[in-house]
């Protein structure tokens, strides 16, 4: 029996898994506070003021909190999402080739790079 080619899937699967952990552990709390309770006015208004958020995400600790947030709430979840979309397209018989894979993972990479670029810019 001829040996099948080794799949590069471990890379995408590792990113998918890490992103899945972030989606399950970090994202719910963020959604609850930043995307729901704060806009509803249930949290003190000054906690998300410009200077405060800048301090937290871009100034304290050389901006490492901002980097961690970008990684855990944007980059890894993006790879998680695009991995599922890539396989979902195969499930729905919409795509099975290399094209879908390239589009999915390159868009995740590009958007991640964009988020990191904005963080870097913010460091000033």
């Amino acid at each position: 029996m001829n040996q099948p080619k080794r799949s590069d899937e471990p890379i995408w699967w590792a990113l998918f898994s890490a992103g899945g952990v972030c989606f399950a552990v970090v994202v719910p709390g963020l959604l609850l506070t930043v995307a729901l309770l704060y806009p509803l006015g249930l949290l003190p208004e000054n906690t998300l003021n410009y200077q405060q958020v800048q301090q937290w995400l871009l100034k304290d600790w050389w901006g490492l909190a901002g980097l961690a947030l970008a990684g855990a709430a944007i980059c890894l979840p993006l790879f998680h999402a695009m991995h599922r979309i890539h396989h979902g397209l195969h499930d729905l018989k919409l795509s099975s080739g290399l094209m879908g894979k390239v589009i999915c993972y390159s868009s995740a990479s590009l958007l991640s790079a964009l988020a990191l670029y904005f963080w870097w810019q913010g460091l000033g």
Partner: protein
Amino acid sequence: MSEQHPPRRPYHTPLTGSWWLKHRYYRLYMLREATVLPLLFFCGCLIAGFYSLQQGETSWLNWLSFMAQPWVMALNALTLAASLFHAKTFFELFPRVMPLLPAPLMIAGQWLATLAVATLLLLLLGGLL
């Protein structure tokens, strides 16, 4: 063999793209996979947030008012539901993939982590830290 056998003619029906509609289990699977769609929206919101943060105070205030738009909040409420459903499925799968401790313990531990992050953020944004 002297007797003539009729040739085999196996009948095969290939799956169609709608296979997952046929059973509840498959529909739940697709729902799990679809949780990433609202997640993509929230990721987009956060990228915009990072963008506006480095643009300046006006831009940041615009982002905050964008996040308070009713349709954005509705979508993010959906995303929260999706993230919790994803968390439930993900936490239950983890001990099966890496059986390190008894499964109920591992599941509880993971929910505790989610709860801890939410509590921390609540304290932080509640001005209590």
